[in-house]
């Protein structure tokens, strides 16, 4: 984990988020630490409800009204003189708005609903450009056309005036990417960018993301529940479970030597071409517990095949230290 | 709390039971249900609760202000009202009646009063309370009297019956039309659906009040109270059905695609059986909600028409007819108690709306 890493651009430390509801508060994130480096892709993987999307929104300061960051830091440009803690900023302040879109771009899961049907794609991209750059409308429009071309949309000069509902799902997702790139951010967060697309389009969009990320030296945080996407795209992987990081490691290690029983379970549930015919695909027993009913000790222990009775259900394992490969598991601690 | 027990109960409950449990969480809707039930009980026992014959006129006691029952006098607990005595106005030499402080009339429970048929069947003259003795002109006028000296309180109570039940009758008719047309529309689709949808659009874009006025005014003068009552019911139900039809059609369209309906079809169930056994129960609660939202509109329609003098005609008594007496500002400034009929109208509209909202939320927690 020390070899040729790009510049350290974002560092999330012990981030905690709570959602207030009618029946008390729910802890959605419980001490999450992540790091993004220029030119690298961090894959964040986990089942639905594990806090992947909440992490992305908390970083950008756009949590739902019920959600609140209750602890931790989100440091932009950590260790430099311009280091800034985003959590400490007012989410509606000028500075924070400059960060959103300007420094960190966001790509969404649902290309249909993530774009407003009431405005042309050009209008929505121009808006993103002009929020961060002093450009005239005409210049911004030209830049929008350029961006659309860059993300591989054919005939961008006419598509710029199209409404989202006139485009196919794949094209819409490309528009979404163009919009996220509008102000040349160094960090991109892609929240399940291909989940809503069919398989061929998925591959194309992933290839595009990979190309743009490499060309521009972007630090990409790729959120997905798909181990296949992780294998194809990520350099490092953070596995999340119930608002905590279960395991962090370079992608090769993760697939070769998964440290956490949860990671192993996730990997077993991926179809493999080496499997024997009629082998049943493994599933993870039980369901993700409701965050309001977090099990005691290690949150994964009720579903864990390697549970150590009297230990895993009593105390929580140590969290993974930042910037180091490891797993939050007693089995792992013993080995260390 | 034992979660598993609730889960078991939930798992076994029928659609209607589930709806009912969800409904009970809406406090306001529950209170409204209580209010509505109370109103209907009043309507059923109207004559028993009334004190003075609502039709009995007596010019001598015209525009009497409200009169309270005095519970105590010098001798302790002794509920009474004052009798009336004639006073000659020294300027106009007109005879007017005013409470006679010297004459006390005892108020008793279950007193004898005017004769009526309880539930329209049992002849009796018992009332919840009344006065003992007294001359014909005397009475308890809790809410004053109108121009003709009729007791506003008793009229208000008796009016509840017509106003509430005409709403119910109108809604029943609307429901019949709405469920039938909406059902056909949703079930068969195609051009039948298109035609019915266009008819609904046409009906909805017609301004209703002038049309009702036209239709109601065209009813012959010679018709009896009952005939007019039914005609007015039909007129006000002509408009209400569109919303019900829309709801029913929407549910039908949604349900047609549901797995359990398709499963029943595949299992070879007949169409009637599918509709009655599988589809109807699952949107019964929606219909109940739509009905409770349609009822206040019906009641207001009757009230408006009667208020204009185009709806029910005296001697029928409804809230609209009572309000008709309050149309004139000069009259109102002298006898503001005539406006009292506005109170039950407002209360009932509110109660039905809260109830309907609660029911709708309960029937469709996600919609």
């Amino acid at each position: 984990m020390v070899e040729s890493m790009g510049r350290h651009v974002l560092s999330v430390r012990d981030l905690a988020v709570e959602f207030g509801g009618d029946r008390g508060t729910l802890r959605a994130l419980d001490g999450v630490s992540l790091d993004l480096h220029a030119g690298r892709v961090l894959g964040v993987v986990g089942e639905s409800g594990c806090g992947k999307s909440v992490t992305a929104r908390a970083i950008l300061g756009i949590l739902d009204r019920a959600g609140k960051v209750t602890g931790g830091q989100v440091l932009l440009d950590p260790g430099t003189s311009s280091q800034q803690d985003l959590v400490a900023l007012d989410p509606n302040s000028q500075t924070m708005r400059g960060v959103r879109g300007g420094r960190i771009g966001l790509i969404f899961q649902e290309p249909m609903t993530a774009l407003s049907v009431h405005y042309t794609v050009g209008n929505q991209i121009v808006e993103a450009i002009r929020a961060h750059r002093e450009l005239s409308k005409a210049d911004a429009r030209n830049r929008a056309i350029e961006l659309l071309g860059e993300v591989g949309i054919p005939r961008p000069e006419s598509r710029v005036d199209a409404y989202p509902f006139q485009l196919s799902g794949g094209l819409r997702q490309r528009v979404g990417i163009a919009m996220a790139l509008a102000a040349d951010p160094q960090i991109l967060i892609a929240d399940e960018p291909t989940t809503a697309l069919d398989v061929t389009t998925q591959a194309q969009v992933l290839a595009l993301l990979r190309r743009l990320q490499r060309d521009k030296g972007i630090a990409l945080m790729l959120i997905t529940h798909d181990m296949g996407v992780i294998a194809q795209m990520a350099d490092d992987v953070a596995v999340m479970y119930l608002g905590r990081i279960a395991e962090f490691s370079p992608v090769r290690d993760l697939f070769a030597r998964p440290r956490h029983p949860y990671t192993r379970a996730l990997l077993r549930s991926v179809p493999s071409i080496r499997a024997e015919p009629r082998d049943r695909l493994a599933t993870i027993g039980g369901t993700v517990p409701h965050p309001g009913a977090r099990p005691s000790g290690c949150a994964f222990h009720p579903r864990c095949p390697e549970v150590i009775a009297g230990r895993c259900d009593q105390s929580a394992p140590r969290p993974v230290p930042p910037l180091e490969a490891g797993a939050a598991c007693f089995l792992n601690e013993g080995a260390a | 709390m034992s979660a598993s027990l609730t889960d078991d109960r939930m798992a076994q409950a029928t659609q209607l039971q589930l709806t009912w449990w969800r409904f009970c969480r809406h406090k306001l809707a529950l209170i409204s249900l209580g209010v509505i039930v109370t109103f209907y009980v009043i309507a059923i026992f109207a004559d028993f609760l009334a004190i003075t014959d609502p039709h009995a006129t007596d010019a001598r006691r015209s525009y009497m202000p409200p009169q309270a029952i005095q519970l105590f006098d010098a001798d302790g607990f002794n509920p009474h009202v004052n009798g009336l005595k004639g006073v000659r106005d020294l300027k106009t030499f007109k005879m007017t009646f005013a409470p006679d402080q010297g004459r006390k009339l005892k108020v008793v429970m279950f007193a004898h009063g005017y004769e009526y048929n309880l539930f329209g069947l049992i002849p009796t003259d018992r009332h919840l309370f009344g006065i003992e003795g007294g001359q014909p002109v005397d009475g308890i006028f809790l809410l004053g009297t109108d121009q003709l000296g009729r007791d506003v309180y008793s009229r208000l109570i008796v009016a509840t019956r017509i106003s509430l039940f005409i709403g119910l009758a109108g809604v029943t008719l609307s429901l019949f039309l709405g469920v039938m047309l909406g059902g056909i529309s949703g079930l068969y689709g195609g051009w039948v659906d298109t035609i019915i949808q266009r008819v609904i659009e046409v009906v909805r874009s017609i301004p209703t009040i002038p049309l009702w006025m036209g239709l109601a005014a065209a009813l012959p003068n010679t018709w009896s109270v009952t005939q007019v009552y039914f005609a007015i019911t039909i007129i006000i139900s002509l408009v209400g059905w569109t919303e019900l039809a829309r709801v029913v059609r929407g549910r039908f369209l949604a349900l047609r695609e549901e797995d359990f309906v398709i499963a029943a079809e595949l299992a070879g169930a007949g169409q009637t059986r599918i509709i009655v056994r599988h589809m109807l129960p699952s949107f019964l609660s929606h219909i109940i909600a739509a009905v409770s939202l349609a009822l206040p509109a019906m009641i207001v329609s009757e009230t408006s028409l009667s208020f204009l003098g185009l709806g029910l005609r005296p001697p029928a008594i409804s809230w609209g007819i009572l309000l008709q007496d309050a149309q004139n500002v000069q009259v109102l400034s002298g006898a503001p108690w005539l406006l009292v009929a506005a109170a039950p109208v407002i209360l009932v509209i509110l109660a039905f709306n809260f109830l309907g909202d609660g029911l709708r939320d309960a029937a469709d927690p996600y919609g």
Partner: protein
Amino acid sequence: MLIYLARRLVLAAITCIAISILTFIIIRLPPGDFVDAYIANLASNGSVVSADQAQAMRREYGLDQPVIIQYGMWMSRVVVGDFGVSMMWRRPVTEVIGDRLWLTMAVSFSALFLTWTIALPIGIYSAVRQYSLGDYAATLLGFIGLAIPNFLLALILMYLGFRYLGLSVGGLFSPEFSQAPWSMAKAWDLAKHVPLPACVLALAGTAHQIRIMRANLLDELRRPYVVTARAKGISELHTVLKYPVRAALNPFASSIAYLFPYLVSGSIIVSLVLGLPTVGPLLLQALVAQDMFLAGTIVLLLGIMTVIGTLVSDLLLMWIEPRIRLQGRA
């Protein structure tokens, strides 16, 4: 888009025909025919009409023809603007109605305008600041508007104005202008009198529209495109106004289609209470006196005005909704 437009136009035409049929039924419903009524009317003034003359009149008006032909004859006169003669006033119906129709529309449109200008900001505020004090206040206003039928509200305001302010609230003109020919001063006088009836009429609609706007906007605020807009770094106010409000405006605009007939309806009965010189009181008089040509014409014209209002709202919707404009469907 043309298909959508054509469909709307055809529907409007069908609605007009339906209204004309209903009107014709209303005209025909009372026992006896127009000539009977006319003769009775003349007789009350001492003139006598012979049976022959009556028969001649029946033939002239086509009353001896089958109903469907009578309808056709009536319609062919109506389309050229001949609505017949008012029995009560012995003058052509159009003359009797005169300005009243326009005043009705003025009051209804003012109410519509008021409904929108009040409901839109309050609805937005209520949704964006859900469960705030202002939201509860708006909800309360909503319940009041919901519960009080507009004629009762008019009645209560009249009583309060008379009792406590000694004012006679009502009318659309000050006495010195009521018979005067149109002038700037008269128009200004009208403008001063319209707000009160417009408010009375608008209350229920406003309450309803606030609820609609609030519910729609709450829905829209949860959509992913709002997060997209926020993630672009534009200000919160700009985000809310440009995206979710824009989307919530759609059902709001289409609600005009039923709001307008409702307001026209309401204006009739409110006019009666407040004594406004709209077609309302005239309609009631005509109905009570069984002056069916006058009554029928009023019903017909009100209906057609409403259809035009609805059509305008459809065009408005088409203008603000790109999906309809480009694909002809909502």
